[in-house]
């Protein structure tokens, strides 16, 4: 029988990270972020997934310093943010850019004025790079004089993206950048992100509900639920995962065999069968050739990790 493989499969110990947080906590009346730890390795894309209200935006705001945490430590580009002076933090943020879920610039600013504001804020902001990106994304020349309030959600997101990527940042944090975009616009946006990542020395933390986007882009996935990290997965480990469709006696047999360790297995009752999240689809297929085991998508993983029963 194959050895037990946990669902969480990232070991980033000793790896250089552009963003690392440990034990980050924040308590509200009706919600709490509980000792969240995650890392964005240098030169990689980390996808943050979780249902609405899981704490993704709160976590991102804490990581960027626009919200104070109750506890925990945040390391940005190798520096402990809590130990830095306010000025040093601001200087550090010259290398970090944020793309919010909604276009949050003052509504009366035009596209060009937003770019000028970025140019004044980020010392290495490239106006030419902005124009090139904005043209590639279809923002310029048509929307040059349009005010932020006149932009559609997609166009506003493109503006944010062009500003963030032209800012000279080494790390970009994006909160739901593809939500509400049509498939063509999403594809364009993902292409631009891939091109931006090409040099290999830049990192991206991106949250999204549209997990198919993350499948195309992310090297690692962090699953957040009710303010806790419930799984960390490498994209290769997601590739390996499977959903076994089992009847009750079959499930009991698999669990009894220890193929997926008891107390860690995630199962969900669907119709007459059980869906079992299997860490290694190929190994499962070799052990149980007679059972159906499909490839697991990120959505499958998310549903089973969040809604699944622990057996």
């Amino acid at each position: 029988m194959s050895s037990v493989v946990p669902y969480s499969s990232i070991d980033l110990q000793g790896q250089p990270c552009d963003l690392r947080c440990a034990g980050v906590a924040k308590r509200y009346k009706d919600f709490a972020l509980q000792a969240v730890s995650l890392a964005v390795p240098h030169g990689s894309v980390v996808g943050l997934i979780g249902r609405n209200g899981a704490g993704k935006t709160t976590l991102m705001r804490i990581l960027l310093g626009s919200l104070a945490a109750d506890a925990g430590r945040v390391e940005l580009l190798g520096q402990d943010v809590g130990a830095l002076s306010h000025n040093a933090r601001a200087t550090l943020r010259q290398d970090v850019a944020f793309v919010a879920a909604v276009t949050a610039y003052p509504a009366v600013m035009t596209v060009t004025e937003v770019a000028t504001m970025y140019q004044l804020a980020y010392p290495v902001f490239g106006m030419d790079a902005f124009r090139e990106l904005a043209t590639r994304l279809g923002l310029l020349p048509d929307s040059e004089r349009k005010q932020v309030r006149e932009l559609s959600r997609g166009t506003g997101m493109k503006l944010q993206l062009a500003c963030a990527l032209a800012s000279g940042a080494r790390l970009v944090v994006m909160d739901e950048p593809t939500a509400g975009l049509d498939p063509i616009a999403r594809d364009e946006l993902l292409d631009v992100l891939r091109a931006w990542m090409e040099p290999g020395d830049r990192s991206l933390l991106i949250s999204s509900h549209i997990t198919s986007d993350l499948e195309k882009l992310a090297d690692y996935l962090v699953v957040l639920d009710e303010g806790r990290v419930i799984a960390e997965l490498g994209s290769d480990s997601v590739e390996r995962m499977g959903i076994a469709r089992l009847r009750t006696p079959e499930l009991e047999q698999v669990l009894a065999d220890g193929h997926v360790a008891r107390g860690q297995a995630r199962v969900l009752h669907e119709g007459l069968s059980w869906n079992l999240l299997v860490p290694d689809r190929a190994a499962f297929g070799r052990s149980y050739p007679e059972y159906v085991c499909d490839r697991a998508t990120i959505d499958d993983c998310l549903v089973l990790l969040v809604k699944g029963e622990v057996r």
Partner: protein
Amino acid sequence: MRSLIYADWIVARRSFLRFALVSLVILCPIIAASNDGTSGAPGVMATCLFVTMLTMNVALGIFGTDEAGDWQQCRLTMPVTLHQVVSARYTFVALVCGATMVGAAALGWLVELAIPLFGGVLTVPRGGSEIVMASWGMGLVTLGYLALGMPMLYRLGVTKARMAFTAPFLLMALIALEPVRNALHGVLNSLEGFASSFSSPWPVLLVGSVAVALLYVASLHLSERLYASREL
């Protein structure tokens, strides 16, 4: 910090026409009422009101923008400190007040010139220096008022603080009404007596400027602390 001043400038510039129109709509009937052949100071009145109205409108307008669409959260992710966020706003408001004082003095002078052309009566035509003094004085009062009110805007946000911020200002504006002036006759007379005890208003304006500058700086530091303690 330059980026934030630039953002405030764009917001104020775009909204300037609206602010100016609102101020003029309020201003015109008050000037007309003051041009009844008794008060004889429509130019001074126009100057004072325009300084106050425009500066207050711009200040409230840019604070309102902060809360619209999460801009105040977004700007904190940019390479700026909290101190820069607050001091950029204070710098901009002070600049607006200064510019409005100059503009309002010019407006007051034009009103003084224009009223006789339209058949109006100026019982006591005011000279340029008197209008400049009025503009300066009212600028100081407005800036002092904002220095007292801005910490409240930073602590509570403009949505919650708007009423508390504008109510004292609206109450002060009631002094322009005859019945209110009559009711406050004694207090106003005492103030006038106090003001006339100075041989020249210039020293008062200079001392007032220093006092308002100190109050403004103290207000900036208080706003910074209050803003830091506020959960956005």
